[in-house]
């Protein structure tokens, strides 16, 4: 019998370890990260949750729940069906979520939620190998417009994902009409794509700056342009696409939404709290540490921005045949 007890004690201990994730003290506010622990959405919830309670903007702690599934679709469906009016619930989202909505991959349209704010963004960049003959964005757009079949482009998203779409926005601005002619290869992450470029498999990478910054510092790759309004603070020498005559920005923003039936009063209260959080040193430091550029858009302005972005993505997705 002793053996059985020991065995079950061992199992019980490990059980306790696995359950402890959810054993956070009860509190009013909850942030759902629609992904496994460790990703960008998880960071959004954990960091914002932590700072909200540090600044006493909420009572007690913010409970962070991981609800992975369908690139956010499972959470979207749950909020739309079960908690549309829950004013204590916020959900992490980003450009990736809007892309999914634009391509009809979420169970409810964009209007099913109220978008609160974006608090920071990873900036899209276009990179080539340090030994590549392509020296400037202008040279690249020329090649893409005239001989789109001669180069291979890649990034961390699939065809019609955000890395692909923002490169196509640049190509179209540079004069490429038939967007489907440009070859695109998907890799599991920005660094995967960059190492494949260093190995000579592909020519151009379009992805977020944060993930690949180490390769810029080491001189293995050359950034042709950052897709931002202003140069990236950590890399002031890298020119923006705008400064090179290509009027395209490609932020991968991080933000939050809440249920579609939350009252105006509660909605505005959240926007205000998030603005206070955004202005705090705590957030400014945390964002930069995670490789984000702090950028604020909130309330009505953000709602409009999200809808514009959804429309732009749907247009390009149709052009390249990802949706009909």
């Amino acid at each position, binding site marked *: 019998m002793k*053996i*059985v007890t020991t065995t079950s004690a061992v199992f019980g201990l490990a059980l306790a370890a696995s359950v402890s994730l959810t054993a956070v003290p009860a509190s009013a506010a909850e942030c759902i990260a629609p992904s496994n622990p460790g990703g960008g959405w998880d960071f959004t919830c954990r960091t914002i949750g932590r700072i909200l309670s540090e600044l006493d903007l909420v009572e007690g702690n913010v409970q962070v729940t991981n609800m992975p599934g369908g690139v956010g679709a499972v959470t979207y469906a749950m909020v739309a069906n079960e908690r549309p009016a829950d004013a204590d619930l916020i959900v992490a989202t980003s450009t990736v979520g809007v892309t999914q909505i634009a391509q009809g991959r979420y169970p409810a349209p964009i209007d099913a939620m109220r978008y609160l704010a974006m608090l920071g963004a990873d900036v899209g960049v276009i990179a080539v190998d340090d030994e590549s003959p392509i020296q400037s964005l202008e040279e690249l757009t020329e090649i893409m417009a005239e001989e789109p079949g001669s180069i291979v482009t890649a990034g961390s998203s699939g065809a019609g994902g955000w890395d692909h779409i923002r490169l196509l926005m640049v190509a179209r601005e540079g004069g490429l009409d038939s967007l489907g002619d440009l070859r695109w290869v998907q890799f599991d992450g920005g660094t995967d794509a960059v190492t494949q470029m260093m190995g000579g498999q592909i020519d151009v990478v379009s992805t977020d700056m944060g993930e690949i910054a180490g390769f810029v510092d080491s001189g293995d790759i050359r950034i042709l342009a950052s897709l931002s309004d202003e140069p990236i603070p950590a890399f002031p020498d890298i020119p923006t696409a705008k400064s090179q005559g290509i009027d395209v920005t490609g932020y991968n923003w991080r933000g939050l939404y809440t249920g579609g039936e939350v009252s105006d009063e509660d909605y505005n209260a959240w926007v205000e709290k998030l603005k206070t959080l955004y202005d705090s040193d705590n957030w400014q430091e945390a964002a930069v540490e995670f490789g984000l550029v702090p950028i604020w858009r909130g309330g009505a302005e953000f709602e409009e921005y999200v809808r514009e972005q959804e429309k732009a993505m749907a247009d390009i997705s149709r052009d390249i045949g990802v949706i009909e």
Partner: protein
Amino acid sequence: METLTLLAGGFAVALTPLNIGLLLLGCFAGTLIGAMPGLGPVNGVAILIPLTFAFGFDATSSLILLSSVYFGCMYGGRISSILLNIPGDEPAVMTTLDGYPMAQQGKAADALAISGVASFVGATVSVIGLSLFAPLLARMAIYFGPADYFALYILAFVTIGGIAGVDPRKTLLSAMIGLMIASVGIDPISGIPRFTFGNYHLYDGVDPIVALVGLFAISEILVLLEKKAADRTAPIGITSWLPDFRTIWMTRWAVLRGSLVGFVSGVLPGAGASLGSVMSYSVEKQASDKDGTFGKGDPRGVAAPEAGNNAASGGALIPMLSLGVPGSGTTAVMLAMLISLNVQPGPLLFERQPDLVWGLVASLYLGNVALLILNLPMIGLFSRLMMVPTWALMPIVAAVSFVGVFSISNSVFDLEMMIFFGVLGYLLRKLDVSLVPLVLGLLLGGDMERNLRRAMSISDGDWSVLIASPISIALYVLTAVFLCLSVWLTMRDHKRTQSRVTEG
């Protein structure tokens, strides 16, 4: 010489009381988590991440804690494979092939000791490789393109044929089912959902761990339910409580071969520990299965995959640290944590944060020793598990399976999936179809398909890209050699059996 100086500095970092404490805690917790069906290193690491934030450890201490959990899980995963035929995590699937038959023959203590020692050697080989050649190997790994990865997976799949089961048609069937299941979910390349039946829960595909727990743990329970009550209460006899050291010594070449093969698989970003243990097992079977004892409780069949998966998990740290490319699911989670601790993995990490890198390397050396010391005395305790009557054990396994799977994603749908796979596993077992090729198809199929399609997008649909690089040609040649060898071995065995029949 410079490496030794840096390593000495690393030991100074690792030997602080806090870091040693974290190391021991991590090894212990990791072994437990790894031993639980359903909970593997990914969950172990993910569970402990909030803890490292809560206590405000610095990056080096956090990384030491998480790496020791990672290595601990690799040790622990084998325990339930051997004793219960239920792999604790994905790479431990191969260990069930010879580990469980050994346990049934009453040699559980031997199997546990062999796997412990093999894990130690495998992990140590990989850590030595990590400390000597990390930046160099990372530079070489970048020349491995999509077409080369595809060739590597072809090699792995061809060798699966020789792994399990008597009837090659059943092995093929099982592998095909695995490949089919691997294609469920949003296709990451085109972004289009496949075989999801409009169900959003299927968009992310089938979580291998959920399938694994269903196929092995739940189907085991179903098989037991069917047996007569008398069979169920009779525990398996144990012939010896102490491991036999001659048996361990006998496996020395298997361990070394497994370590090398595993290490190389680990260094390739994206291949990881599962491929490492598969390849080690197949190589070993080809190299030394002269009497057809593999799959029937051959100690070398336990030693090779265990050395392989531990060597691979050390190897996987190389692309993670020096390129920022995760070599496995677990290293992907560790990578995310490093970034949030303001450490930028990548080509400059070794120069900019030598304390962190060499502190980690040193702690891996220490962790391996700690794991071996921690594990060997526990063999007696663990093998006593075999004496627990199944009527008492199986409810615990069921409870642990449900809680483990639910804790991954808080999803009832995953529990339903697990039961579905349990029934599927039960049916396949009844039909005498080995489950291992299915799991390997599920684990490796997705990456194989994606790399084929990447190669195709690069070449714009020209198939000749697949044999355009020297690496892929070499791998195909190796595949051909493997095929010829296994056909030759089968023919020879066949002749032998025939001559025996005629003699009789």
